[in-house]
């Protein structure tokens, strides 16, 4: 099929970007969205032009590195799907497709569709872990964890850190990302001891990185490729309020 693409080109974080028009022919419905971009880049190379830069790695929907806005939606039209798992059969011959980077103040554009998501790592570094050092852990079965708890912790732990939640939010809030980690760790007995400290420091860092506040519009949950529930935001708020209330 033949497609008309409007793609965001921006040389670096300080330069001005713009939508640029491209035409591409010979796209098969079996190709993934990123393979379609590969094909376009191949033709740009033949014309001696700089390729369109985009982030991607595993192309299996799990590493979280890919992600662009496709016709205004993070990761495109399908539910619970990363950009790399979107296939061209979701489009039809003659379509015009708008492709832009995930936008947020905390995610500066590096070039074209590539963005910088270091802010996520900085938030994790302030408390998104259990302080267990290597080598001396007790026997794993010595602290039973109910089946339901483990499953609920897993549901939250499944976040791939792609940033679609931030890009979909009108406030560019990272509440779903932060809520998922706080929920995952607070549910487990090993993570409970540090839950208050974790909630306070992660929320503080989230604000400092320039993410907006959550105003409960729930676009994040709809666009999350892993289907992380907004209830994790409620859990984050609960842990945070508990921490504030009982802070010594």
């Amino acid at each position, binding site marked *: 099929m033949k497609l008309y693409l409007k793609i965001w080109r921006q040389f670096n974080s300080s330069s001005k970007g713009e939508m640029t028009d491209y035409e591409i022919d010979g796209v098969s419905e079996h190709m993934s969205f990123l393979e379609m971009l590969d094909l376009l880049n191949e033709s740009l190379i033949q014309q001696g032009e700089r390729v369109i830069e985009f982030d991607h790695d595993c192309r299996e929907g799990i590493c979280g590195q890919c992600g662009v806005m496709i016709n205004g939606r993070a990761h495109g039209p399908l539910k619970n799907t990363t950009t790399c798992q979107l296939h061209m059969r979701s489009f039809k011959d003659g379509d015009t497709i708008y492709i832009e980077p995930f936008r947020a103040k905390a995610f500066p554009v590096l070039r074209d569709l590539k963005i910088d998501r*270091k802010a996520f790592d900085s938030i994790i*570094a302030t408390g998104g872990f259990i302080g267990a050092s290597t080598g001396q*852990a007790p026997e794993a*079965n010595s602290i039973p964890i109910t089946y339901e708890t*483990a499953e609920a912790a897993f549901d939250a732990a499944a976040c791939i850190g792609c940033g679609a939640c931030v890009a979909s939010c009108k406030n560019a809030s990272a509440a779903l990302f932060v809520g998922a980690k706080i929920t995952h760790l607070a549910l*487990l007995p090993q993570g409970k001891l540090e839950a208050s400290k974790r909630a306070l420091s992660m929320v503080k860092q989230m604000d400092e990185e320039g993410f907006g506040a959550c105003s409960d519009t729930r676009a994040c949950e709809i666009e999350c490729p892993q289907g992380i529930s907004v209830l994790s935001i409620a859990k984050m708020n609960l842990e945070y309020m508990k921490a504030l209330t009982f802070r010594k």
Partner: protein
Amino acid sequence: MMESKIPEGPLADKWSLYKSKAKLVNPANRKKLNVIVVGTGLAGASCAASLAEQGYNIKSFCFQDSPRRAHSVAAQGGVNAAKNYKNDGDSTFRMFYDTIKGGDFRSREANVYRLAECSAHLIDHAVAQGVPFAREYAGYLNNRSFGGVQVSRTFYARGQTGQQLLLGAYQALERQAALGKVALYTRHEMLELVVIEGKAKGIIARNLETGQLERHAADAVVLASGGYGKVYYLSTLAMGCNSSAIWRAHKKGAYMAGVSWIQFHPTSLPQHGENQSKLTLMSESLRNDGRIWVPKKAADDRNANAIPEEERDYYLERRYPSFGNLAPRDISSRAAKERIDAGHGVGPMKNAIYLDFSDAIKAQGKDKIEAKYSNLFAMYEKITGINAYKEPMLISPSAHFTMGGLWVDYELMTTIPGLFALGEANFADHGANRLGANSLLQACVDGYFIAPYTIPNYLAGELNLPRPDISHPAFEEAEKEVRRQLDRFLHTNGTLSADYFHKKIGRLLYEKCGLSRSRKKLEEALIEIRELKTSFENDLRITGDNTLNSELEKAGRIADYIELAELMCYDALQREESCGAHFREEYQTADGEAVRNDNEFCYVSAWEWKGLNNEPELHKEPLTFESVELAVRSYK
């Protein structure tokens, strides 16, 4: 130069003896010592975090935008540990034996025993980190069995075990970063190793955001940069997976071992077109209920459901009646290729086989199958648009895990003192074939439990020597060499893209040094690779400049792949036997089974770089088996 350093004493005591004698560094002195860790997957992140906990200064490098993206994240099935929770007779020795046998008796006994010994601690540690492993209703850990094994020892977090283990390691790493013990260099790629007076003392890295070349010095360098299966282009690996870190270390004197042992995973989705960039893995667990078949008649164009039972060839059940559809990965993959090559392949490109659930659905009901595999069926439909409840899945083997890598001794040190290799980047532990659920284990055990003893043992000897400095001429020269190469890529001004060469080398290897090999094909491949190398040197086209430029990144990786491919062919050619993943057509039984030659090839092939356009030199590390008897690996 190649000394395996296997400790004295009985097999079961070797690791304890080593640990009790390993040299220590005074806590006050640790902050004077610097270690570079390249790669942030399970091996790299776990090593960096563990050494930082001890007090060393760590610089951690990855080419992705965050350490959490490393390809360990994609591993699905689980991680093995000899815990004997199911009371079904598992033990360290049994796990050791299964792994040695699974690897077709081409791995080092002492390493494999240590892997099994440390496995139980890994589960304990991961649980302490918050990894949400599957649980029984009573709250205890659940596990399941996997291919090549008769006990339950595979622990899992749904189908995302790699992701969860990696997040544990990544979080530990970020914790140390916040404490100032780890400096993170994301979007950085190591392009050269710096060797001073015979020891690894630093790296040249390229900042992938700015294009700047940076010099980093350290007292030891750890390569945990993963495997190189992406050399085949179409593979189950992430697009960025590459061999550059280990290959450039190889060219600086580190030996490469078992280079041609590449595992082809039997259940990936088949290639469907020329523009395809990768093959997606479907969990092997599907083989528990799916039956594998092809039409008996070659080039049968009928729809799968229109082919009657008596015209189907369930070739795995026919050839391996006792293991059937659960035969190990190398055996299943090869059997598929054999049928496809004989003209029985199915699907649009005639390159696939059927994985059929209709009998299981009939016997157990659709609900049961849905409960077990619905996420996989959904993923299959997302990618192919086909409903596998109604018609069989199309699957085919694809390049997956590399058993080969940098040769390391028992301490995981390469032939360059001070250069360590961990996880899939080294050759150790798996032999000629890796059993399912052992890759996450090896990566974690190397980083969490082995390197934290062996690297300090080395560092203790470095403490009173002069600290390396980035103004040393060796850094100057290494940086110049990297710059020369990048300039060459940018100014070749040819007509063909980096991807063109990658696809070319991949197809060549797949045909001539893939699932099966022969002297004739390998000799042809060596000639064709040299031609491709010349064409790459003269006809590459890289657009853009020397700043952020993904095409320029690719070019360096492909230059390395082309040289690595040549070594893979030498390795496969020299090994005149069939073992594990390595099937030489000249060495098979009348009914197509592998014939190993223990009299002549019971050794690790370690190759030394001898310069461009020279044949590499072979060194042999003999393998001795004191605790097991070498047996024919049969799954009939």
